[in-house]
């Protein structure tokens, strides 16, 4: 009987296999795209409730009191954090082509074409420094107690930083400390959405709409409810991500392809674009879709009492502005790195000086066409030495109180250690801000006609190095070119 059973089982299995194998073999394949970006998203661990832990460690009078309490358990946290740019505001030294010595760049020592520079203006600028007390060149970067844990870990929304990065008057530090958690949108956004001195001013793709963005403003943070740190993955307090406004290389950069598979478009015609066009180009059709961002800042008109003040057009302390919203970015070749104007570099006042020109061109196979918000403006330079100057704007003798350019530039130059001839004027500059946040859903991506064909094109093909529209002339890897 056993033998019969075995025969029967083997027979049944054989029958089953004979039917199943060919059926499964011939059944149509399901959708080939096996793109599952979710598997790359970090899990959010439940944060330990610190209420009881901190109960007996108070009272906290200063920020450093809190930091000391944190360090009792998280011994390495401060030293980890102190190794990152959030603390140093400066890069590791780079070797840059055409320069003899390695250079470091960062907020700490370089200029931009917004508020120009930190040096001499510390107490105001460093309200966004993740530390306490940076109000002069003498700030102690080695003191762990100066690290501000709360700015990134506060979950109450009541923690506000004031001059030199110190907690604002009246902040209930104990309450904040008890309610710490993993960094949320408000922690990052508190500084990054307000770059340039206010909401939406600087980036064009980072502003307070991202606190609660509609689906069509940012598909990741809106529809999919991402935190900043889901993409800006962080290990040992080192937050990933780079921007050519303060970094020159693309080390530790974030890419769409960290989560999305490279050739996920069903349409082959779109996939052949990927070797020359960045994802952002099509998937961020317009920048600053909700909140207007600053596009132009002319310092030369500042200090004039005759011009009526208006937050988005003219301020006596700052000069004239142009704001724009929902605009088409400018498109440039970009290989992830940028050139950099360094303090002291000679410039030509007759030409627009690019502070951070994106690198790459049509012959650079690693470069792709990428969208940028380009911030243009005029800022002071020394007409004798032909370099840009950094004015002291904040504090005693600063331009914002005295409205005296000569004084402000002299004081600023003393701090930066640059020669100042006493002769100054204003020269045009431009600065490139990669448009990479506020990705829209695929349904809103650009279609062919925005760049190609008879109608108006977003691309200046000839400026990009093409003979003409590649739909006719062929792309850069085409035999036709």
């Amino acid at each position, binding site marked *: 009987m056993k033998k019969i059973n075995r025969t029967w089982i083997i*027979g049944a299995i054989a029958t089953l296999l004979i039917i199943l194998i060919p059926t499964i073999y011939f059944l149509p394949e399901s959708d080939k795209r096996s793109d599952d970006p979710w598997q790359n998203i970090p899990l959010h661990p439940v944060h330990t409730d610190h209420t009881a832990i901190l109960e007996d460690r108070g009272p906290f009078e200063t920020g450093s009191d809190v930091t000391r309490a944190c360090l009792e358990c998280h011994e390495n946290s401060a030293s980890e954090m102190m190794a990152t740019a959030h603390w140093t505001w400066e890069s590791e030294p780079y070797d840059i082509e055409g320069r003899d010595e390695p250079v470091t760049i960062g907020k700490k020592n370089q200029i931009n074409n917004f508020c120009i520079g930190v040096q001499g203006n510390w107490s105001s600028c460093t309200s966004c420094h993740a530390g306490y007390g940076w109000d002069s060149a003498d700030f102690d970067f080695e003191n762990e107690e100066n690290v501000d844990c709360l700015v990134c870990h506060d979950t109450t929304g009541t923690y506000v930083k004031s001059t030199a990065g110190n907690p604002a008057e009246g902040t209930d530090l104990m309450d904040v400390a008890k309610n710490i958690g993993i960094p949320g949108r408000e922690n990052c956004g508190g500084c990054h959405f307000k770059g340039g001195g206010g909401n939406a001013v600087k980036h064009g793709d980072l502003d307070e709409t991202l606190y609660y963005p509609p689906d069509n403003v940012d598909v990741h943070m809106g529809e999919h409810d991402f935190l900043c740190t889901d993409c800006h993955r962080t290990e040992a307090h080192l937050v990933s991500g780079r921007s050519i406004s303060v970094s020159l290389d693309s080390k530790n950069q974030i890419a769409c392809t960290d989560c999305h598979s490279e050739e996920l478009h069903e349409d082959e015609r779109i996939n052949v674009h990927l070797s020359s066009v960045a994802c952002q180009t099509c998937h961020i059709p317009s920048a600053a879709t909700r909140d207007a961002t600053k596009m132009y800042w002319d310092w030369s008109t500042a200090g004039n009492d005759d011009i009526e003040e208006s937050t988005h057009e003219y301020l006596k302390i700052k000069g004239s502005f142009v704001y724009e919203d929902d605009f088409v970015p400018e498109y440039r070749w970009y290989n992830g790195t940028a050139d950099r104007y360094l303090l002291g570099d000679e410039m030509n006042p007759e030409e627009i000086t690019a502070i951070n020109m994106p690198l790459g061109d049509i012959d650079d196979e690693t470069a792709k066409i990428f969208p940028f918000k380009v911030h243009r403006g005029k800022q002071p330079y020394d007409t004798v030495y032909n370099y840009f100057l950094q004015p002291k704007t904040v504090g005693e003798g600063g331009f914002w109180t005295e409205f005296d350019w000569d004084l402000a530039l002299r004081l600023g130059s003393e701090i930066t250690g640059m020669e100042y001839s006493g002769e100054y004027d204003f020269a045009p500059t431009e600065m490139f801000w990669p448009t990479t946040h506020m990705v829209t859903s695929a349904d809103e991506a650009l279609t062919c006609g925005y760049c190609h064909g008879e109608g108006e094109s977003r691309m200046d093909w000839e400026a990009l190095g093409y003979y003409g529209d590649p739909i006719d002339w062929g792309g850069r890897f085409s035999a036709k070119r």
Partner: protein
Amino acid sequence: MKLINNKSKQSRLKITSILFVAALLIIGVAATGQTALAEKSAQGGPDEGSPLHPSFPMLDEDGENVLDTGNPISTMQTCGSCHDTEFIEEHSYHANAGFDDMVAAGETPTERDWDTSPGFFGTWNPIAYRYLSPAGDEYPDLTTPEWIQAFGGRHPGGGPAVYSQTGVKLTELAYSVDSFETNIVDPETGELVKWDWQESGIVEMNCFLCHTPAPNNDARKEALHDGAFQWANTATLLGSGIVSEANGEFTWNETAFNEDKELSAEFVTLQDPEDNNCGLCHGLVHDNVEDPLVMDGCSPERWTTITTGQIISSQRLSVSGMNLADKENLARSWDVHAERQLECTDCHYALNNPLYYQEGSATRPDHLLFDPRRLELGEYLEQPLHQFARGDSAQSMVSPNVKGTMRGCADCHDADAAHDWLPYADRHMSAVSCETCHIPKLYSSANQQYDWTVIDIEGNAQTQCRGSEGEVGVNSLLVGYEPILLPREDANGTKTLVPHNLITTWFWIYGEDERPVPQRDLELAYLQDAEYAPEVLEAFDANSDGLLDDSELIIDTEAKDSLIKERLSALGFDNPRIAGEIQPYSIHHDVATSDWATRDCQTCHSEDTRLTQELQLSGYVPIGTKAEFVPGSNVIFNGEIYEDENGAIFYKPAPDAENLYILGADSVKWIDAVGLWSFILVVLGVLGHGGLRVYAASKNGVHEVKVEKVYMYSVYERFWHWMQTAAIVLLLFTGMIIHNPDSYVLFSFSGVVITHNVLATILAVNAALSLFYHLVSGEIKQYIPRPRGFFDQTFTQATFYINGIFKGEEHPFEKSAKKKLNPLQQITYFGILNVLLPLQGITGILIWGAERWPPLSAALGGLPFLAPFHTLIAWLFGSFIVMHVYLTTTGHTPLAGINSMINGWDDVEVHEHTEK
């Protein structure tokens, strides 16, 4: 501009003529220049001319420079100095408009008594209503000059706008008091009055309309409407800076000309026609993707858009400015070819254009993929055919010799490469056009009905649209519509289902030789002093509010009907009566990519299949009339018109009449009925028989029989049997799903179809192997009934089942390993294995073969025969299984038979009597 693309392709193909390449290069540069130019001219006046086209003097019809004479420009003279304008005009169905094919009234393919040509000039379109009256009509509607005034706006000049039907130029035509070519109808009196051709001039073929970036079509139409025919082409240039107009006087601007009195280079903006040029007459074209497309709800201005809803735009629907239902989810573009930056002329090219021309497969040698020998560019530029490649649209009958010359979908797309997911791809593509799935829906509104039996206060028909809701206008909600799929026979002989719109019109005709009542007479019948005549108002104004709304303005009662009849008769019209006709409009644009195409099998393979989805023809039918399809198109109307309870009429197509049998949608009712009944009867019979057995057993007690164990079925026999069982049961199950997918929504239709085919293959292989086994082992003998005594034995066995089994008698025939089947089984299996199984196999293979060997399957009845036949046999198989399983229970114990098939050993009755 596709010029450069082709240049490269050709150079890769090693064309040796350097001259040719050089010439193409020049064209290419010119073409790119034109793009820039077009953009600039859109912003303001031209500031850069064509880099290719030379300056030229503008000449009047006597060949004199217009700067000297101040006369209107003659394109035939001006462009004719270099291009063969006569050749161009002669080879242009746009200009000719059927003029060369005029016939006696009533002899056109449409069979309308008043149609005189297959083209625009002579074929009535009830949407526009007015018509060119055949010579001699008592109540003429349009004479030739009036036709130009009324319809010249959609005609590029030339042909009937230049020549008389006698071949003489209209300006040289001798006056005849009753000629419809030299007179117009006085709108007041209805009498003919002389038309002064010398004063009006004629409309030469208008090169500027299609070959300049911003032609002034409004000014052109105005000049035509005003009867200033000779100025129409000049008016097209208004706004270009070349000519200006004040108080109806045109003045040539000397500043636009150089010292040689030739047009200055920067004003020479001649170019290839762009989509916007075509769009002037053909439909809504929108080429600025950054600018939201807006169009009035159901009052679109342009022809193809009002007749079908087609819009040529590269924009996503979701970013257009249209008030579309579910708009945020409509991320597709209006037209994928526009999205991919194709232009009208990329497919509708001049037939001798050396860049596009491709010899048809009928004359091209099979081995030759590409024939590089081309017309020299110079020759082409001198004599460019203005016959443009076109498809097979039902609504267009002019110039049938160029039908189907256009590149079809398959000329550019390799459908096989993109449809590997689709089972039976070839079969699908031979039955349905690409458009069937790739134009699943039109998202705009289109006209549905024109009712000219009534007119509004402005003299317009009552119209109904499909695809929009609410009041007509920008605020109406566009819901779009799904076009109807109609079988159409194309010029190349293929017959496929193609999406269409159907427009129904109702109108008054009169006389023995039918004519529509002219619009002016309709106005006389209905209106009086720009208001409804009191009698009309009284008869129509149901709610007595002094106004006629749409629901009142319908001839839905005898009273209304006879009133209007009386009033038309009083105007002299003989036997006025209402007629209705239905015109199909083929839809080939607004194609969607695969994401938006129909991909779900059950859209068609289900009971309410998309393929027979009806389309509303009209919201009502005027009393005592019916609508008929306009004859002469290539569409096959084999469906039916039906009326719903609200009086609306619909057309439901019937693709089965075209030899299409849609699995999952179609079924033959009597076959399912016969099959089901045979199944039910068998089940009932089995239950009855079994019940009686149980009853008899309970009465007689279980009859003890002597049994002995016999090794009945070898391992292979058992394996073979159960394999076949599994295959047949699963085949029946999957077959049921395919036959009626609506009841099994959990299953993917295509997956089930494939599974069915795989199972059938397994069954066939298994059957073949077992046949081999039975033949070689000689077991086959068991299945072959022995002729001698066969009927007696069968009778004995039948008697046993009918009688003896209840009495507990012994089985009449001993079962043994050598003789497993009793005579009744032999005859049954003989039937099953030799009749049902082969028939089912053959019909199944032929259904599968509709993809592989379509002619063979078609020759043997095609799917409409094979599929129902296959279904019938499946029913019989099902019935057999029930019977077969039941009979296994007739052994000495109910499960003995099944047991033996499982373990091979059977307890066989040992009979006391010897075998006969």
